[in-house]
């Protein structure tokens, strides 16, 4: 959100009335930089760096090349999971089925490659299409039944996952083409090659939301669907597009995870794919994407995922006990949303003064 200190002064008003020149100028560059420093993204970046510093001092293992490589590899995947949730949060909805779709996409890819013997370059796009199709179904049901996507994706989570288990008989595809499995092992220094995929996805998403009509329509319909519809925006269509996009991104995350695991496992996202829910929500919400829709921060979501990955990794290195990690992440989510709320209230008060 843009934060502005005070409404226009009366003198400036009169000037604008005559010339209207002040209007086009926009904020000065110096203030823009200051504004960025005060932004959520900058805050996240600093907190993340702080923890990196802290963990590198506390444990020797944290900064080892292998650990950093493992960390960035997890980050690459978790960020895509976060993007997958982010694009539906923009509509004011959510996608509980993200994990289930991710697994479905991965299993579909496994089936294409292992059972049908399709080449990798064909199997992967097809698997992404499966994910996008399942997502589009979520979107279409949400629009058609005119209910919150919560209940629709709760139901389809069950349906997608159940169908997948029935079709695959809960068996894994472990005989995957070596070229595909090697993808996740690419490595530049301590950077995982998977980060390239994540970066490309991130840039494309940024361009979509900030530089295209479709993206802008998604944002405005997410902020206020009725007002958008009354201005001629096809609000329903934007919901379907977002859910399809979410499904495609979930499938992409599933494919990245499959490449890392070397096998497509039905259990890779837990019961009904619900193990993905926490990372999926943590990243965008820490990154400043509102649950109420209409806002998006691609960089924030990436940084949110980074913070979560660093914390998880560091705590494991500290031998905190992996059993407690989940409770810890839950507490972080709670604190993050509560702090964000406090900040909103504070800004509101300051604005009124």
């Amino acid at each position, binding site marked *: 959100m843009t934060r502005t200190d005070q409404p226009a002064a009366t003198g400036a008003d009169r000037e604008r009335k005559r010339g209207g020149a002040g209007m086009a100028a926009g904020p000065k560059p110096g203030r823009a930089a200051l504004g960025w420093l005060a932004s959520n993204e900058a805050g996240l970046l600093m907190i993340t760096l702080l923890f990196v510093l802290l963990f590198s001092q506390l444990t020797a293992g944290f900064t080892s090349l292998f650990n950093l490589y493992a960390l960035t590899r997890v980050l690459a995947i978790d960020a895509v999971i976060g993007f997958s949730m982010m694009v539906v949060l923009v509509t004011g909805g959510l996608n509980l089925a993200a994990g289930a779709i991710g697994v479905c996409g991965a299993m579909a890819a496994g089936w294409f490659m292992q059972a049908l013997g399709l080449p990798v370059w064909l199997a992967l796009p097809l698997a992404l299409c499966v994910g996008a199709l399942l997502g589009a179904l979520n979107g279409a049901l949400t629009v058609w*039944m005119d209910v919150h996507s919560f209940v629709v994706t709760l139901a389809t989570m069950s349906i997608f*996952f*159940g169908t997948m*288990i029935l079709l695959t008989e*809960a068996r894994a595809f472990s005989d995957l083409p070596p070229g595909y499995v090697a993808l996740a092992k690419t490595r530049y220094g301590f950077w995982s090659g998977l980060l390239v995929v994540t970066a490309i996805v991130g840039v494309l998403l940024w361009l979509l939301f900030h530089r295209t009509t479709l993206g802008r329509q998604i944002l405005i319909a997410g902020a206020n669907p009725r007002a958008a519809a009354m201005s001629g925006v096809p609000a329903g269509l934007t919901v379907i597009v977002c859910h399809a996009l979410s499904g495609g991104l979930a499938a992409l995350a599933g494919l990245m995870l499959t490449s890392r695991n070397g096998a497509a496992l039905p259990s890779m996202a837990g019961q009904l794919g619900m193990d993905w829910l926490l990372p999926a929500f943590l990243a965008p919400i820490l990154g400043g994407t509102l649950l109420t829709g209409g806002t998006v921060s691609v960089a924030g979501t990436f940084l949110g995922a980074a913070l979560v990955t660093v914390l998880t990794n560091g705590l494991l290195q500290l031998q905190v006990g992996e059993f407690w990690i989940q*409770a810890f992440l839950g507490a972080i*989510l709670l604190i993050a*949303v509560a702090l964000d*709320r406090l900040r909103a209230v504070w800004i509101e008060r300051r604005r009124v003064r």
Partner: protein
Amino acid sequence: MSDQGVTMPRAVLSGLRRHEWLGLAAVLVLGIVAMAATQPAFLSTYNIYIMLTAFSLSVLIALSQMVILAIGQLNLSVGGLGGLAAVIFAGAMDVLGLPVPLAILAGLAVGLLGGLINGIVTWRTGLNAFIVTLATLSIFKGVNIGLTEAQPFYGIAEPVKWFGNARLGALPALLLVSGPVVILTGVILARTMFGRHLLAVGGNQQAAALSGVGVGRIIVLAHVASGGLAAMAGMLAVARLQLGQPTIGDDWLIVSFAAPVIGGAVLAGGHVSVIGTCLGVAIITLINNALVLLRVDPFAVQLLLGFLILFAVGLGRVRSGR
């Protein structure tokens, strides 16, 4: 639109209202008749006992979600809270060696406290209950796993084990808990100020506030009630399983939503039905049982539940005249 309501005789109107769950009852009877006709094992005393046991447990889970749906919110942490209460209850007997009544109090206290946290955080911050309960779900589940290190507690007191298995013919002893709870919930919702205010807050929060209803108190109490119900379900599950499994509650989410929604709960709040929810639980129990008897893959249950939710929500849209 309103003209119809004016001229339509009251009898027809109230008949239609009752129809809301008459349809469900018809579906249930039809299912029972079909199963009885095709599966001889279905009507055996033991099978009925099995179904009633499952019903006793599920109905508490469903009510736990229902009271939150009544205020127009949702609670993802039902399973997390029930699971935590279950292991605290079991751990109190196994590790601490507390007598059964104290262990029950401990389990119940965990549920009420967890609900209190959910309620206070949602009310105080004004945050979406979804995100709050997603966070507390992780916390409750994490504490559960942290305490148990994913290992069950085996040292369950004998009276609890006995209670979990006791039955009179086809009637499980567990019904002694869930039966009164269901009736009490129904009476509270239909006949007490608290119940009506609960529905008023769900139906139009601003109107309730302007009428002088203490909205915050109602929201917090609803979450406390939800936590208490989840804890009871968790403890019954311990009695039933004869051990304190850390995984108790993991698979409650879908059922907890499916039953009230099938029973006609309006997701926007303000309208829930105890009878409808019970029938929803009964139908789900019947489907589960039928699939077991027909030796269908248990995952098909998940599939069916998903379709049932979609169907019920779609039906609700049609009924509300859209």
